[in-house]
């Protein structure tokens, strides 16, 4: 059970949070300009890395804010947490 440091509330138990999949996949600004393949890339394709992964998390049972997390999926170490819109830490 992770202890997650919400950037707005501080350390809280994992059960207050919801995971939201891979981070930094921006919704295309002009979807209608995209080919089926390009749209499918945005819509369906997600990485599932064993190792360091950038993820979206939501403090669903708290401030309800979305934020980003860098997590090593092999040992669940949370390496960084940063707000939406902030630059990801360089690896």
């Amino acid at each position, binding site marked *: 059970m992770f202890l997650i440091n919400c950037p707005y509330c501080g350390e809280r138990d994992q059960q207050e949070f919801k995971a939201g999949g891979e981070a930094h996949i921006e*919704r295309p600004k002009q979807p*209608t300009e995209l080919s089926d393949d390009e749209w499918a890339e945005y819509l369906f394709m997600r990485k599932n890395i064993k190792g360091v992964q950038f993820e979206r998390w*939501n403090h669903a049972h708290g401030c309800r804010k979305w934020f980003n997390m860098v997590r090593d999926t092999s040992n669940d170490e949370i390496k960084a947490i940063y707000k939406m819109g902030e630059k990801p830490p360089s690896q």
Partner: protein
Amino acid sequence: MTKNLRVKSSEYIDETNRISFKFNGKTYHGFKGDTLASALLANDVHLVGRSFKYHRPRGIMTSGSEEPNAIVQINPGNNRTEPNVRATEVEIYEGLEASSQNCWPSVEFDIGGINNFLSPFFPAGFYYKTFMWPASFWEKYEFFIRHSAGLGKSPTSSDPDIYDHRNIHCDVLVVGAGISGILAAKNSAKNNFKTLLVDEKNELGGSTVFENNEFNKINNKTPSEWIKKEIEELKNIKNLEIKTRTSVAAYHQYNYLLARENLTDHLEVKDKTNKIRQRLLKIRAKKVILATGALERPLIFNNNDRPGIMLSSAIKKYSEFYGVACGSKNVFFTNNDSAYESAMSLYNKGINVEAIIDIREQSESKIVKKAKEVGIKIYWSHSIVDTTGYKRLNSISIMKLSNDGTSVTGSKISISCDCLGVAGGWTPAVHLYTQSGNKLKFDEEKKVFLPNQNTSEQISVGSCSGDFKIDEIIKNLNQKLKDTLNINETDLDSIKVEIDHENSKRNIWLLPSDKPLGKTKPFVDYQNDATAKDIKLALREGFRSIEHVKRYTTTGMGTDQGKLGNMHALGIIADTAGVKMGELGTTTFRPPYTPLTFGTIVGRNVGKFFDIFRRTPMNDWHVENKAEFENVGQWKRAWYYPINGETMHQAVQRESKAARESAGILDASTLGKIDIQGSDASEFLNRVYTNAWSKLAIGKCRYGLMLNEDGMVYDDGVTTRLGENHYIMTTTTGGAANVLGKLEDYLQTEWPELDVYLTSVTDHYATASLCGPNSKKILKKIIPDLDLSDENFPHMSFKEANIGSIQCRIMRISFTGEHSYEINVQASYGKDLWKKCMEAGQEFNITPYGTETMHLLRAEKGFIIVGQDTDGTMTPIDLQMDWIVSKKKYDFIGKRSLYRSDTMRVDRKQLVGLLTDDPNIVLEEGAQIVSELNQSPVEMLGHVTSSYFSPNLKKSIALAVVRGGKDMMGKKLFVPMENKNINVTVANPVFYDEKNERLNA
């Protein structure tokens, strides 16, 4: 008449407090402070159970939670009964009853014992090999197996006890209150760390409280004298919370640990009532100090499982702590010095020690010399090759070990005895350490797996980290405490230790016998009857992975999870396969360390607290008027209102007619309501709904369909524009929370530039939906000053009004196709509103209707229910709702996906109406639809999603999704059922008032 083996008074046993208890129906006596095991042993009862496969008689083997054999059913037959409890952990109380498990009809005469004689036919993998084929055999065996091989009985009536959960946050958690744990906790608390010390036993001090080896001294005192003073001092330390009878079950990531605190299990029944029985502690610790100790290992030799064969350390504990002699003629069998301590402990109390069998060639330590001096016979380089005694050990035979330890030589010596203490060395209890996600390393010299690392958040100290001698423990503990707590001085700096050094070790995982292995029974896992033979067989059959061998032989798969024998299993595999133990690794140690009750796990979340119910403000009225309820998400919704013993069908038919002929009223409070404000609110709605919102006038309502980005219908509902920058959105009852979540996600992550604020107001408003041709007249009676003319208040528009002094929002919208109003008031006025409507509607025979009638009425109109007529694979086009998809808007959620090749396929399943040729037959929802009956395999075209008998149309109607259904209007199809084929015709899904004339009537 049973023997009394109580040998001396013990300060932990209150001999003035005599307690009677029953075991297998017979009454025995013990004292306050006894465990069930110590009290039985004091009564010379060793035989307490039968093994799982061969039903061999088994006795008490240990004195703690690692016990494999003495597994009992507590309080059989009443609602507090509990199976699989270790007799070594049960503290006795007046009136306690316990019985043996896994024996039928009784522990003394067990019919399954015949398996023991059939054991050549029960090799490793027996159950896999035999019962897999032929399949019909299983049924024949099942009766026999279910009767003779059960592990206890679960209670048949509800649990009378209360359970609880508690969250604990601390700076330092110390697990285990032996010498290391006590010193760690003391120094942590003294340095102002908020410290929690837990131990599974009811007394602190671990094995040190009965450590009386005269050659070991701490500050010139025997370890037992010294630790008692330390324990006394603990009680006055601030910042330190101590919890005994508390077993840590699981160690999760981020120092999150679950522990079970036992509060009433040791109390008499009259003192258990209305108290919390067990509490699950959810502990978040900044630092964890594991001081979980070590478990003594047995030795693996032929027939090493007879009642009377015990761990040497257990014999010492029963003698020193409980004042109980486990036998009158004792022998020890060892590979290290600790058995000599146990032997001397018995000797010093005047209990007969016949001999010590030692597989080593010699040992020069002081305690060994002392044993020699007092005249205990020691057989060096000898091993036990066999034992006798069916229900109780009565002799052992020993022979000289060869130099390489693989065979025995010379003549056989038989020694008569009734108790054998076995000492095979110590296994660090690393279970919690590995649960936390860390790796083990193998120590070739000590022959143990040890924690591979300490971190700033977690350290292992004492014997669980491989330090078995007091001097090592103190020295290493001191350094680890200084490092992890970041302190310069500790109490340990001034501790002076003298110890009796052990100078000889020998380890043989499987001891030889004079008989070939195939003719012997060297048990490795006592509870599951796995022998060394089984393990070797598994290797011969090609199993290599330790995890596979475990499952194939069932080694380590009992309720004790192989706490005693796992190391031997690994050792035997390593020796046989010629690999190093360190390379082999271990099986996974899974939580819980000791079994947990379901009660502890669920805590207070039982009965009405098991799941949350949401009730509307009008709920009381529905209950008073005998509504039947259905669960919709967490909501309890009125389903229908039967009167005069009506069936559901009758009630729904009556309610549906009344709503169309005069007036009906529905409690619609459960619909999700989201208040949307901000200067970009209109733009936001444009992006989340498929249709256009910019031009919606203030005071007007519009139906919207929300898609997922994949183009599939996600939710629907009516949204009303309350002001220039203010809307109220309704969602489906079940979708409310998810819709809010999805909208927040887009606002925060994709469109943070939009000035929009969302607030869930579902619970803030109560909603009564008034419908039918007389709804207007009823509303007029309630709010006489509101102009209800079509000009002032047309369909799909909104008014604010007052009912008396209650403010309300009224939307003229309809889910039934009738002229209707949704009246919203502040939730606390919901019941008043409802009553006012009922009162005003009385002259029009206003009829309350529930969700079933609502579904029927909307199906007559062909309105979809998201989640019933859709299933996450339906686009608006599939639903024949092209009209709601804006062609002009540049983008909205899901738009691009509507033009994917897959979503544009013409043979997708599409929503259609279905009419049965026989109007009285009502199709089953979920029934499959086909076009050919004589095809094989038959091609499924789709299925029925909604189906009702319409009282207003006087015929059966259905909605269905059918492949290519859009172009099948009028086509004859079939719904094949179990006993008949139903002929149906594809129809327009709008069955009633296609021109919407009634909306404006």
